[in-house]
């Protein structure tokens, strides 16, 4: 379980998060919505301790992230909004293996996880390519594979569908849903709620770094979220 308790975080003197209290249950599927700059990325980065709160605390399974960042990162896998900046190795294979290596797994296990993760996102053909020579959508798939291969309890996905073609989107959504059905917690920050709206059980809307709305996607979208700069999925129009 992930708990935000009165979290505030300043970036360059401005409050990117301002008094966020939130509880995300294990196995949940949460959509994180809100306009550009509302604080979605900042919130996700708190979940795996890339950022720590200036005020309040973030607890992952009861442990504050500022006390055990490594523990939080083992449990929460985060896919960056800018997929390119997530790449750390020279080939796709090495990059996807990077996380499992850090978990100290056996070579065979690493190989197996890499193959599985890469095929789950439909990127097997890219294994030996340089990540720096991939298209935007290919890069996004690789970035997701790099986190899937760590098999974290929680997937924190920042705009996971940006740049993807129809097939890529389908593969990623399927994989995310599969992970959720296997009991993983999923938190997705997105401007495109459509593919997730029937799958997520909860939507949280951020506005100016605070939680403005919190409910089922059905409730919120029936009411309309245009006032928060969030596009209403077709099925609700």
């Amino acid at each position, binding site marked *: 379980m992930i708990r935000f308790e009165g979290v505030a975080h300043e970036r360059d003197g401005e409050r990117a998060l301002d008094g966020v209290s939130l509880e995300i249950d294990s196995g949940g599927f949460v959509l994180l919505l809100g306009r550009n700059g509302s604080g979605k990325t900042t919130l996700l980065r708190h979940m795996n301790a890339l950022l720590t709160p200036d005020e309040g605390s973030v607890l992952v399974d009861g442990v504050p992230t500022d006390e055990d960042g490594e523990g939080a990162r083992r449990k929460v*896998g985060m896919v*960056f909004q800018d997929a390119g*900046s997530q790449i750390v190795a020279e080939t796709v294979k090495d990059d996807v293996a990077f*996380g499992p290596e*850090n978990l100290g797994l056996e070579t065979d296990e690493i190989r197996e996880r890499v193959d599985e993760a890469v095929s789950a996102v439909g990127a097997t053909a890219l294994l030996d390519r340089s990540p720096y020579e991939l298209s935007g959508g290919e890069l996004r798939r690789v970035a997701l594979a*790099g986190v899937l291969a760590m098999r974290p309890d929680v997937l924190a996905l920042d705009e996971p569908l940006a740049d993807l073609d129809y097939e890529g989107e389908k593969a990623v959504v399927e994989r995310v849903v599969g992970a959720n059905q296997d009991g993983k917690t999923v938190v997705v920050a997105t401007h495109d709620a459509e593919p997730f709206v029937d799958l997520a059980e909860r939507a949280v809307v951020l506005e100016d770094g605070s939680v403005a709305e919190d409910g089922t996607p059905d409730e919120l979208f029936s009411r309309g979220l245009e006032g928060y700069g969030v596009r209403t999925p077709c099925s609700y129009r």
Partner: protein
Amino acid sequence: MTRPKFAYRDGDTFVHGVDARAKLTALVVVSLGLTWASAGVTAAVGVVTYLVARSAGVSARELLRDVRLVLVILVVGTVARAVSDPAGLVPGAVAGTVASARFVVIIALAYTVSATTRPGDIRLAVESFLEPLPSVEETDWGTMFATAARFFPLVFEESRRVRDARKARLGERRSWYSRVRSTAFTLLIRTFRRADTVALAVEARAYSSERSSLRGLVWERTDTAFILVACSVAVVAVVV
């Protein structure tokens, strides 16, 4: 939130307001003067630099943190010099310390200038220095200089991103060697790629050396005074 090192930070202090040409001139003149300065004068200029930096909102702590790598190198250099100086350990150490101190003051000055001057203004200042020279495309040089000045913050920013990327997947668990190696490699590739992207972005928006500028530099009386003070500091440094 940490800023990229050496980056410009907004403000409306006196030093922010000084014309970029005055600041650059002062930087060059005082740095040259310092090259000949005695230990006492170096210390005095150091104190003045500190006060100027403080008044511009640059804290000593920030500065020390941002240039700590250089400081380590200087300390190592001083020790090396002390050990190898034919005049003996103590004179060697003294000479090394004074030399390092000069360098530190120069870095602090440069840091203060880059923290209080918009990169665009630095570009304009360089252009205006080059304008009288025949057969120099001063806008190209100005742009080049400004891009180079942007380069250091870029590298630091990029290294922060690489660190984040690594951290997010538990890379901190790796050995020291493996971390340095992977950071260096990734950083190198990304920096070059980024330079490439910047070049493309500049081209894509029809860059030409026949360009005008949104901002202009306005010389005021305080700027003249500023230069005069800087020159006298330099003269004192050389003469005393």
